[in-house]
């Protein structure tokens, strides 16, 4: 078990190093000099050069990369070119919103998807199955920003239950914060839930055809008991794989959704920083997203081993 985790950890580290290299090189290759952008088009070449030196942008590529990595390790991400404030605190402020948003969206996704997937598989080819599967077909086709606008029209404009945008913060009670993240979380979750529901359904149906399901029935277990005690655990492997991948989609989705709902989250920070050529912020934010995705998939890998006893042995 520990060998398995150790190996996965090494893979995780290697992936992070690879991601950091790609992020750094791509952003470095982008046209546009950050110093020039900050000073404006009319700035004197001397002043631009001075700022370039001050920002450390005159150093060779490798040196700048290593400095960045060193900073990542000790937690010093440098200062934003635009705001002049530490990037770390800038990101921390935004994570207070984006992490709860991602957790809420993921919770909604998993809840909807598992119930719909298990329900439809248990009622294979019956009316409920066809109905719910048609709904997921629609769900997959929905662009999340458009669905977000529909939600706003219904719940904020017409019913006035929730606000159309903005974030209430956590200071005035958790409920207020959750309430302002509810519509964005639902918009993010619907498409993902539709996909995951279909994955769950086909995974459960596949396991239901296995011989051991018949064995369990031959022992006198009812269909429902077989589903819960024998089928679901076997079906969870593909479902979890997709869940891990969806987490990445969901984080990417926050960039659009936070803009639709005027939420001061990480996605919006990335969007604004790109617009401002605040590349040091962009680089660190993208690195953070990459790290989150890699870590979530690492957790999924470790969970496999907990669910499926065969994995431990094969990897030892």
């Amino acid at each position, binding site marked *: 078990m520990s060998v398995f985790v150790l190996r996965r950890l090494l893979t995780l580290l290697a992936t992070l190093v690879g991601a950091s290299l790609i992020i750094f090189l791509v952003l470095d290759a982008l046209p546009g000099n950050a110093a020039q952008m900050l000073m404006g088009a009319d700035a004197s070449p001397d002043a631009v050069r001075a700022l370039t030196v001050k920002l450390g942008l005159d150093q060779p590529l490798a040196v700048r990369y290593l400095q960045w990595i060193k900073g990542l390790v000790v937690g010093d991400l440098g200062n934003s070119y635009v705001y002049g404030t530490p990037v770390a605190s800038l990101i921390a402020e935004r994570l207070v919103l984006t992490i709860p948003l991602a957790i809420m969206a993921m919770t909604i996704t998993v809840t909807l998807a598992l119930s719909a997937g298990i329900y439809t598989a248990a009622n294979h080819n019956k009316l409920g199955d066809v109905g719910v599967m048609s709904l997921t077909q629609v769900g997959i086709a929905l662009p999340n920003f458009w669905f977000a606008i529909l939600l706003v029209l219904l719940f904020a404009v017409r019913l006035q239950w929730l606000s159309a945008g903005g974030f209430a913060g956590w200071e005035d009670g958790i409920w207020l914060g959750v309430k302002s993240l509810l519509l964005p979380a639902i918009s993010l979750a619907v498409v993902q839930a539709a996909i995951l529901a279909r994955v769950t359904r086909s995974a459960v149906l596949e396991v239901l055809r296995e*011989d051991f399901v018949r*064995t369990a029935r*031959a*022992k*006198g277990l009812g269909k429902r008991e077989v589903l819960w005690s024998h089928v679901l*655990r*076997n079906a969870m492997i593909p479902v979890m794989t997709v869940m891990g991948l969806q987490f990445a989609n969901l984080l990417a989705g926050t960039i659009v959704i936070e803009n639709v709902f005027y939420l001061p989250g990480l996605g919006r920070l990335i969007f604004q920083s790109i617009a401002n050529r605040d590349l040091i912020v962009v680089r660190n934010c993208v690195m953070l997203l990459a790290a989150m995705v890699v870590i979530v998939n690492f957790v999924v890998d470790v969970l496999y081993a907990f669910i*499926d*006893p065969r994995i431990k*042995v094969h990897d030892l």
Partner: protein
Amino acid sequence: MADPATMPLIEVANLGVRLNTSRGPAQAVRGVSFALKRGETLGLVGESGCGKSVTALSLMGLLPDSAGVTGSIKLDGNELVGLSDAEYCRLRGNRISMIFQEPMTALNPMHTIGNQVAEPLRRHKKYSAAQARKEAIALLDRVGLPDPARRVDAYPHQFSGGQRQRITIAMALACEPDLLIADEPTTALDVTIQGQILDLIADLVEERGMSMILISHDLGVIAENVQRMMVMYGGTVVESGPTDEVFRRMGHPYTQGLFRARPKLGARKGTRLKTISGTVPELADLPSGCTFSDRCPLVIDQCRAALPPMVNVGPGHFVRCIRTDVSMAERVGALSA
């Protein structure tokens, strides 16, 4: 109520099973009737697709929901056809158990073997977890799994095919069923293991006084392991009788074909295996009349007109053929082989 000593344990009368296949509805089993007393053993022989597994699954009530079952299956005089699934669940694994063909896939890879063997005990006998575990270890010991106390918490992938079949046998025996159905229990195993598993099943059947229905396509397995046998073809029983009687003198051209088609030791090099010409008919379009008529060497027009009746050709020995006078003129069976 009749005397339980003489009343059959299981009595099947005119069983019919209609399945919805991808090629349309198919009458997978027609007019199957037999009775089995407590402690008696019955063999079902036939090629794949002849209806023997469907017959077994209908006894277990495990046919797909879309299947239509007609006729009657009585266990100790109580009708099973038409029972609700909940009622059937009380019988399965408790009074009727089944061993399946594929030990590699018949066990749930995610659960320990101990839990899987204990499951019917907990369910039907309401054992506590500790009691069930203790009993599971005893059962695993009885079926010859080495070191059961230590291996009870291991997972199926840690065992060989033969060991896994022993585990499924332990599972099927857990609640001491009255009837054990073994569906090709050794087909997926090495030849050396096959004998051991069959001996184990035979010992257990004897020891516990169970009735057994053994399904096999292997005449040798049937000859050695059951008292009575039924040969099935195209969903109907074409020959039935005491095993010794049938093997002494086979009546149906199909049974004879199966017997001639078996490989023989000591055959001269280059001798080709005899085969039955043609292929098993699709259940969706069986020939009218005798199901074997399309492949039968003795076929006459009358065979295709209507399903032949069962003809009594010896003590308890019945053959569904109108040409037994010809087929049995040439003696085919263990005596002539």
